[in-house]
């Protein structure tokens, strides 16, 4: 089992494409419908990877229960993955630690990596990211995507991110949900009128990835153009 995948991410950040080159017998696992094209030497098989519990965990983490496995069973070949919307793709190599991913950010991973949901409790509820985040752990490669471009931030101490813009973070970072400094004294009024609402405050040492766009404001904007139902 080879843990490292030969890969290339091109056309960043707006139309990013991930190309994975597989040796004979090598495998890559990806979320359903991520595959754009592939060599004919590859076989695809859909399955509930990691068993029922891990699959359910993924479902609560905003992903599909199904994971597609691409195997280079008839010789070496390549497979190209693309995110569902315009945006960036980022690679991370896991070496025994864990990576937390925003709901829906998972794209593909190599053998040796497991992706499941992780209960976040109350802070998940307030963060607007959902009660369950995705957790990738093990040894190997993981690829995740975003809406908009991805920026890497090396957190050393203290950093705040608007809750909608978090893509992924190493689990060496602690986080809690808070209001912005300066808004605290103002109570609820400030909190609601600033438009910034709640932020995630990361503490510790580790890497954090954020996206430069957030789909939700765009969706509220397009909503005004929807036809109205005739009663």
């Amino acid at each position, binding site marked *: 089992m080879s843990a490292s995948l030969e890969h290339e991410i091109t056309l960043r*950040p*707006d139309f990013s494409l991930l190309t994975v080159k597989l040796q004979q017998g090598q495998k890559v696992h990806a979320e359903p419908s991520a595959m754009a094209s592939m060599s004919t030497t590859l076989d695809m098989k859909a399955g509930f990877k990691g068993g029922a519990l891990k699959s359910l965990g993924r479902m609560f983490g905003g992903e599909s229960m199904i994971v597609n496995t691409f195997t280079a069973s008839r010789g070496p070949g390549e497979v190209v993955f693309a995110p569902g919307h*315009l*945006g*960036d793709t980022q690679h991370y190599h896991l070496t025994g630690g864990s990576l937390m991913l925003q709901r829906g950010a998972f794209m593909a991973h190599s053998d040796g990596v497991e992706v499941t949901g992780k209960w976040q409790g109350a802070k998940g509820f307030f963060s607007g990211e959902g009660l369950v985040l995705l957790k990738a752990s093990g040894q190997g490669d993981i690829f995740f995507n975003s809406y*908009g*471009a991805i*920026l890497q*931030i090396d957190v050393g*101490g*203290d*950093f*705040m*991110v*608007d809750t909608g*813009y978090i893509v992924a973070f190493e689990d060496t970072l602690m986080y809690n949900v808070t209001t*912005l*400094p*300066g*808004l605290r004294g*103002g109570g609820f009024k*400030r909190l609601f*009128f*600033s*438009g*910034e609402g709640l932020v995630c*405050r990361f503490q510790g040492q580790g890497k954090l990835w*954020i*996206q*430069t*766009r*957030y789909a939700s*404001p*765009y969706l509220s*904007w*397009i*909503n*005004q*153009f*929807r*036809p*109205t*139902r*005739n009663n």
Partner: protein
Amino acid sequence: MKYQMLCRPAATAIRFHLDQGEGITCEVGAMIAMSSGLTVNTTSKSRGGAGGIIKGIKRMFSGESFFLNHFTAQQANQSLLIGPAMMGDCVHHTLSGGTMIVQGTSWLASTGNIEIDTTWQGFTSALFSGESMFWVKCSGLGELFLSSYGAIYPIQVQGEYTVDTGHIVAFEDTLQFRIGKAGKSLIGSFLGGEGLVCKFQGQGTLYCQSHNPPSFGQLLGPKLKPR
């Protein structure tokens, strides 16, 4: 204050480096991330004074929010990341005493003593330009950051220049504009899909955007489920 434009042109974000005491005023909701040595103050006023409720209400008419967020660095070496809501680029313009008229939703952030107010561009402009009736008026000394839908391009107008309605991001107030037809005849203009256009006159900088949000919305909207 230093700034850096990242990930241009479709998913542009601006990273500011602020030293102690330095500040930026941003559109509500523009903040993506920041270091913890910054504080935020939400007011309906421009930094340091004038404004208040009336200006806040006027801003709402221009398509901006009633409130403004002022970010101030309490310590040295702080960073602030901001970005617009829509896919598109950002541009920087230095104001040295002049006035910039900005299309409602394009104002993103400004520094220093830039006064943010709302201006009335007249009835005909409002009805036919496809833009808001009120525009954001930025004047004073400092740096101004604007956002667009799609790419943004500057035009140095000398004399006359025509822009399709909906494609204006901002222009200097040394320019005057009036609504006109794109072609010689009105019918021809509409058949050509251009309809009415804005005709600028004078000397000054004009910023245009490659895409027009209402057109895109009208293209996509009917394909969505009814509300």
